[in-house]
């Protein structure tokens, strides 16, 4: 199971059965799992900064099963928010009473789960792109919302995710206002959106963003929509409080 990206071959997402040892190569990251004694495995992850994470995994059987999959980008550098701020590099202009569908890249993190007895326990999580994993504030310093920040670009389809770095998110935009507006960012609670994977591709539940008038304010009402796909649903890494939707102000 592997995928070649920009000249280097990386591992794929999915379930791995380990009898003796396993090596997974990801962008900027290497994972090594090996059997060190009967029913005991060692897990180590090393990233491009030579940061090394090591764990010992005692198990009941002689075989270890793990799942490597994309997870929501909420855990690195620390768990502080449920919200995602996608800063669109090329704004989308919507004329009055029009709608459009765009595909955006959304960052992901990688989760490693220990699979046993029908359970998936979180073993590790990390990002393959730590330099771009940063926070930002949506709103004013007094009452704004802390978000994970990502500069994003519009892509053509679900096939355009970059393995282990980002997933593709479909956004249905609808302008019900009586004037045209440019959309430069999308802010939403990503904790509601599930992530799905297949080989090294990943996708996220869609968003439905409606530009509308609420009393005297013009807002973008962002809600999530489950998608129907043959991709595999990623397990949830973090314990979350589900927030269904978000009202953004219109700039």
């Amino acid at each position, binding site marked *: 199971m592997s995928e070649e990206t920009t000249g280097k071959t990386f591992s794929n997402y999915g379930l791995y059965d380990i009898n003796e040892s396993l090596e997974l190569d990801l962008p900027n990251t290497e994972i090594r799992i090996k059997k060190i004694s009967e029913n005991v495995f060692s897990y180590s992850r090393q990233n491009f900064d030579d940061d090394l994470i090591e764990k010992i995994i005692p198990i009941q059987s002689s075989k270890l099963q793990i799942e490597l999959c994309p997870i929501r980008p909420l855990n690195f550098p620390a768990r*502080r928010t449920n919200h995602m701020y996608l800063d669109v590099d090329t704004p989308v202009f919507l004329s009055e009473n029009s709608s459009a569908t765009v595909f955006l890249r959304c960052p992901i993190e990688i989760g490693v789960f220990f699979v046993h007895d029908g359970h998936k326990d979180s073993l590790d999580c990390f990002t393959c792109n730590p330099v771009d994993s*940063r*926070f*930002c*504030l*949506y709103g004013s*310093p007094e009452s704004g919302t*802390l978000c994970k920040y990502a500069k994003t670009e519009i892509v053509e389809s679900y096939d355009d995710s970059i393995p282990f770095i980002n997933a593709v998110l479909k956004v249905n935009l609808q302008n019900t206002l009586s004037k045209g507006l440019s959309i430069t960012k999308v802010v939403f609670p990503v904790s509601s959106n599930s992530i799905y994977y297949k080989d090294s591709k990943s996708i996220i539940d869609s968003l439905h963003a409606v530009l509308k008038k609420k009393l005297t304010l013009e807002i973008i009402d962002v809600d999530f929509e489950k998608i129907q796909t043959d991709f595999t649903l990623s397990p949830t890494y973090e314990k979350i409080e589900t927030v269904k939707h978000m009202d953004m102000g219109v700039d």
Partner: protein
Amino acid sequence: MALEFLSSLSEIEIIGGLTLLSLFVGGIIMAVGVIIARTVRVLFAKYYAPKLPQDSAKNFGKLIYFGIIIISFLVFTSTTGVDFSGLLVAGGIFGIVIGFATQSVISNLISGIFLMIEKPVKQGDKIEIVGSDVIGTLLDISTFSVRVQKFDGTIIRIPNESFFTSNIRSLSSTPIRRSEAIIGIAYKEDIEAAISVMGKEIRKSMKFVLILPEPEFRVKELADSSVNIEILVWHPRDDWGQVGPVLLKVAKKALDDNGIEIPFPQRVIWNAKD
């Protein structure tokens, strides 16, 4: 047998109409009152307290407990049939005397009540008492005092009156905070280039610094030996420790790596004969 025993108790008068039987009944009432108070407090703590802020839950718990005890005591006094009015008058005078003697205690109690009503800060907030060296995490607001755990791990107790009248700076009420640092560069250096390299290094190595609002650089002062640049960066409110103490180190590294001079203080002295 039991009736005879109770009847014998009712005949034994202790003082002013207070019989041993009424004292016995009163004891039962108080015991039942204490059991009810404890049970209600446990039920409150289990089912309702988790929905309330921690300090409010604690104070409501106390209020319910002592409220039931006081009601039990009132029931006890009413069942005995003893006239306590003389005791109340004496108690009133005694209360005034005690009130004068314990003025600061009463003051702390009243301040504590107002702190609980006003709620300028809540348990777990990071606070600073302006003008003092108290900066840390608020542990609790109790009847007479407030406890703050300083960042060095020690706990300081502040009387409620003193806390209530102080200027309290809350470090937890907004989602983000700002940290600042000032660094000087030599007069010969390009200010824009220095700002650019510091901005890039902060973006690269300080993972808790916010992208938006962007880090800000201001020329603070044309000082004696250097052009002083003020760096202002925002970060999540709980991550000051990851940003504040390392900001200057990162800025210096950026300048050093790019050969931008941070000058020593220097003074040129001209001799009058020259």
